[in-house]
């Protein structure tokens, strides 16, 4: 396997947002009208044209003012991806050899199943094009031996990219070096994500970061239980009516009365 992992060490992030710009540039995503909501987080959320967003969590300090926690937010590229399980069109959401989960927008029919099952709430529906968009882990770059645009541009070295095992080891070493509440986020759920974090603070401190993400139970019930059961139900009814006909026979109207 040629699995790769993007490691985001938020302790090194300066929130310059160079990654946001590089993402837009490489993926040719337009600038958008935004809104001032009294925070530096801009735009306020991920959008169909913003696949990469630096979130600013503000922690109020006792002595007044705030402390910032920065987090580069984008698709986590799950090994067991709920979006891929839910997608109704074959080949529309696919996984590359490196582990990137990519939406083929040509095939997307805008059903928004992926939007509603993603444990990280990443994909965004564009009501103008009726399609869903998200980070591709720059699959068109990494497939050619390059690194994602955001990692390429990151000045302080907060975003790095490399072979899976190496990056996991690097992440744990860094968390250990940071000490305190520092943790590694990403290798323990959905069979491992191909985007991982080193978080200096507890997971719950970061806005919009799922604490214990998993493929939703509803997706298993829907795709792995009710879907095969529907075939069983129809099959059982066909077999049942067939045997009813040959064993019990049809109910013929009585003679007479005409």
């Amino acid at each position, binding site marked *: 396997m040629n699995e790769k992992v993007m490691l985001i060490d938020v302790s090194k992030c300066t929130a310059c947002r160079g990654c946001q710009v590089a993402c837009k540039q490489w993926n040719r995503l337009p600038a958008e009208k935004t809104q001032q909501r009294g925070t530096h987080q801009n735009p306020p959320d991920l959008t169909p044209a913003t696949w990469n967003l630096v979130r600013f969590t503000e922690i109020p300090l006792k002595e007044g003012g705030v402390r910032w926690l920065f987090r580069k937010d984008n698709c986590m590229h799950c090994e067991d991806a709920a979006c891929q399980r*839910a997608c*109704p*069109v*074959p080949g529309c959401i696919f996984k590359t050899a490196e582990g990137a989960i990519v939406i083929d927008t040509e*095939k997307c*029919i*805008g*059903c*928004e*199943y992926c*939007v*509603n*099952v*993603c444990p990280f*709430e990443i994909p965004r529906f564009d009501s103008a094009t*009726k399609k869903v968009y998200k980070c591709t882990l720059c699959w068109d770059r990494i497939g050619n031996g390059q690194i994602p645009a955001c990692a390429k541009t990151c000045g302080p070295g907060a975003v790095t990219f490399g072979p899976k095992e190496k990056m996991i080891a690097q992440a744990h070493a860094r968390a250990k070096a940071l000490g305190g509440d520092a943790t590694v986020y990403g290798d323990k759920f959905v069979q491992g994500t191909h985007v991982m974090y080193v978080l200096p603070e507890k997971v719950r401190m970061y806005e919009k970061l799922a604490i214990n993400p998993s493929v*939703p139970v*509803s*997706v298993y*019930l*829907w795709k792995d239980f*009710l*879907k095969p*059961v*529907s075939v069983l*139900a*129809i099959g*059982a*009814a*066909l077999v*049942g*009516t067939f045997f*009813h*006909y040959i064993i*019990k026979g*049809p*109910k*013929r*109207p*009585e*003679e*007479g*009365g*005409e």
Partner: protein
Amino acid sequence: MAKPKNLILSSTVFERVVHWVLAGSCLFLFLTGFGLMFHSLSFIGNFFPGGHYIMKLLHNIVGIIFGIAFLFALIAWGKDTLYFDEDDKKWFRVMGGYLWEVEKVPEAGKFNAGQKMFFMVLFLFWFIMVGTGIFMWFPIFPPELTRWLYVLHALGVVVLGGFLVIHFYLGTYGNPGTFQVMGHGYVTKGWAKKHRSKWLRDVEAGRRSV
């Protein structure tokens, strides 16, 4: 159509048209729904110009047609189906004579207890399928809720899928003579006596027309 000799009208034009609209839209919904639910059946989408996107759009639009058609079905059959009487309880005890030999099947009105139950279940799943379908099409609820609509919609496929096959069997070769209730509407008196004797008495006494 002129009244054929020795035959009796079992259903009105209104009933027959509603039945066909329901049947046609239901089959279309199953076909297109399966094309979306099973990757192995996704070739169904290739029959539509515009592919899966148009197939999904038509699934949604025909869903609305099905939803509205069922309102007419309620007008047509609600008063004869949405209750059980003493004979219906007896009917269930012998399962209408469909599963084992019984001396006498309890008399039925226009619909027997099994048909009434079928209609009640269809009523429930009409509500579930149209209700979930609309909010899958326009997902205005939070994702945590919307993803459970997918589960309910799939549950409807399980129940309605099995029901559809049994309904088709009982309406055609399982009960010879029955199909014309949905066809030109005329059945033999023998059929009416066998399947809906209480209704036949009412019609012959002029207490109801159809």
